[in-house]
């Protein structure tokens, strides 16, 4: 689960990770009031969407407006807010349709001495949380990782003890941070790592992380992704979810316990198991087609869930054919067959349906489909299924 910058900063505040003062605003008037409340001569207004790359992002409706802007008056802040709120921001991470901005964050300005990059992730290879810091702040970290990986410093830490002071000293030495700034860095980094573990984050990223002219380390940006599997122990964090930021079909699927990702193609896929679902997309592409989605109905799927899966696939107007690929393990072929029959009664299949069943109760499942009289193209194996579904759309 992702949250907005302003929400992440609220959490930073509660863990004593230093941030600047700021207010969230939903209207230009609120944005103006926020500027005035901050009381300075300079503020930064930032569009709140879950995607990164906002500074360089532009609005479809107001191409001259960027997703992040410095402002020097309440009126200027209100004008920027007017350009942002309700409009669609396109960044390198949003895709061409952009993300609608529903709120902005108006934050104090500060005098920046240095810009850094910082992120905490769980390193799968080391099986430990990992703090990464780079002297190259404010730029695309992927580029730094590619071109000069030595500029990214890494410190693993044990979640039971947190990041140790000596680890911060090592980092500061290499980054040439000393004096009051080093002291500020120690508190900043250790508190952030504590937040990471206690709130079950899967990623926390700050770009840029700055050292101010008065030698304080401050998070100018804040991105947090939580581990969905751990949300049961953080009921308060669940409330930070912004469903407006999520793909409606993916949200609907998640509510039915299905794992769904929308893609660009025209062949709908319904598969059990994540690996097999990915492989089914791959084989469609291998035979010249394009998958419209990733959809894993899971192991214990019941008829209702599978019927809902069909509804979701068919709600995509791009879908010109559907491939059902089931290798029954826990999931039984008869369950899937019944769902196909139910779904056809309820929603009707106006597009070709190719079905490949294998595994638990396969003969009974095939028999049910055959006896239903539905116009189903049955396939004997994966290649046969992929070829038939690709042929049906071309």
């Amino acid at each position, binding site marked *: 689960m992702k949250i907005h910058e302003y929400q992440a900063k609220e959490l930073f505040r509660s863990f004593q990770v230093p941030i600047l003062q700021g207010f969230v605003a939903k209207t230009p008037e609120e944005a103006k009031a926020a500027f005035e409340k901050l009381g300075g001569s300079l503020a930064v207004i930032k569009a709140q969407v879950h995607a990164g790359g906002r500074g360089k992002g532009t609005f479809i409706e107001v191409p001259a407006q960027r997703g992040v802007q410095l402002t020097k008056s309440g009126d200027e802040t209100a004008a920027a807010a007017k350009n942002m709120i309700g409009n669609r921001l396109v960044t390198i*991470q949003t895709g061409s349709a952009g993300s609608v901005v529903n709120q902005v964050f108006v934050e104090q300005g500060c005098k920046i001495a240095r810009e850094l990059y910082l992120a905490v992730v*769980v390193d*799968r*290879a080391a*099986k*430990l*949380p990992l703090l990464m810091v780079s002297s190259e702040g404010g730029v695309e*970290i*992927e580029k730094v*990782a*590619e071109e000069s990986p030595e500029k990214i410093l890494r410190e693993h830490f*044990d*979640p*039971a003890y947190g990041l140790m002071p000596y680890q911060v000293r090592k980092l500061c030495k290499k980054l040439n941070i000393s004096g009051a700034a080093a002291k500020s860095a120690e508190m900043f980094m250790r508190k952030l790592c504590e937040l990471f*573990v206690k709130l*079950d984050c*899967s990623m926390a990223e700050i770009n840029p992380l700055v050292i101010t002219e008065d030698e304080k380390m401050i998070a100018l940006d804040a991105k947090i992704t939580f*581990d*969905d*599997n*751990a949300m*049961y*122990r953080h009921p308060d964090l669940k409330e930070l979810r912004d469903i407006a930021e999520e793909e409606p079909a993916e949200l609907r699927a998640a509510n039915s316990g299905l*794992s769904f*990702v929308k*893609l660009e193609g025209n062949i709908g896929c319904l*598969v*059990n*198991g*994540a*690996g*097999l*679902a*990915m*492989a*089914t*997309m*791959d*084989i*469609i*592409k*291998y035979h010249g087609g394009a*998958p419209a989605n*990733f959809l*894993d109905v899971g*192991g*214990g799927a019941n008829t209702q869930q599978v019927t809902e899966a069909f509804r979701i696939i068919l709600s995509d107007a791009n879908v010109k054919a559907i491939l059902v690929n089931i*290798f*029954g*393990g*826990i999931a039984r072929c008869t369950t899937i067959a019944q769902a196909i029959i139910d779904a056809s009664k309820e929603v009707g299949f106006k597009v070709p349906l190719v079905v490949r069943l*294998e*595994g*638990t109760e396969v003969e009974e499942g095939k028999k049910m489909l055959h006896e239903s009289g539905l116009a189903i193209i049955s396939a004997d*194996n*994966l*290649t046969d299924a*992929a070829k038939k579904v690709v042929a049906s759309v071309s």
Partner: protein
Amino acid sequence: MSILVNSNTRVICQGITGKAGAFHTKGCKEYGTKMVGGVTPGKSGETVEGLPVFDTVEEAVDKTGANATMIFVPPPFTADAILEAVDAGIEVICAITEGVPVIDMVHVYDRVKRSKSVLIGPNCPGVITPGQCKIGIMPGYIHQPGKVGIMSRSGTLTYEAVWQTSNLKLGQSTCVGLGGDPIVGTSYIDIFERFQNDDQTEVILMIGEIGGDAEEKAAEYVKNHVTKPVAAFIAGRTAPPGKRMGHAGAIITGGKGTAAEKVAALEAAGIVVAPSPAEMGDAVMEALRRKK
């Protein structure tokens, strides 16, 4: 021989009184696995499928001589269940449960690593040595005793590979579902080492997927330490960056972990990579042919 489990393995089920635990205990027992009991705190004295239920793993080991366990307890209790099995000295721990928080696994992994236990999973189908011992949720009948050692991060894709190798009359020595989570107890490399040292295994099939760099590391290991023929498949060639493909681990981030990178690393290590999931069996045949 086979690896990890065989006809002498004595298995308990943690979470045996739950729906999934009871259902799969029955399935494993019917397959011929030596199921010897189960554990559910507070339910000692009950029986499931004719097997005794105990309050603690320690007691179950004491009374039944169990040396393997399959875990079906819900995610909030999985870390505890794994550590209890480690504490009781269980040799092979299969955590089937899906949805365990990653930070829990950081703690668990550290403890498992310092013990004599092997942890398979979580979020995995389990382990099977065809004809001898099935621990987990895979459909038993698609397997056939034979020569292919199979390991995978995905459940149903493993079934696909098993099915193909059974149809080619190659059969399997042991199939290990490593699990789809970012942190799992056992790596490809751990299993490569076991298959390399196993007489029954003549060829190894590794099924990988996008995300992370475990496949690249495995390729490096194969290059230096594995003399047996190896075939592979990588799922997710068509997956877009930044989107999680079901498994918590299957996500391309920062341009890393793409299928293309993985395939290149595998091929550079002399591994035969199947271009499509329908050709995993053929890739195994090709790997066998090339080594002759």
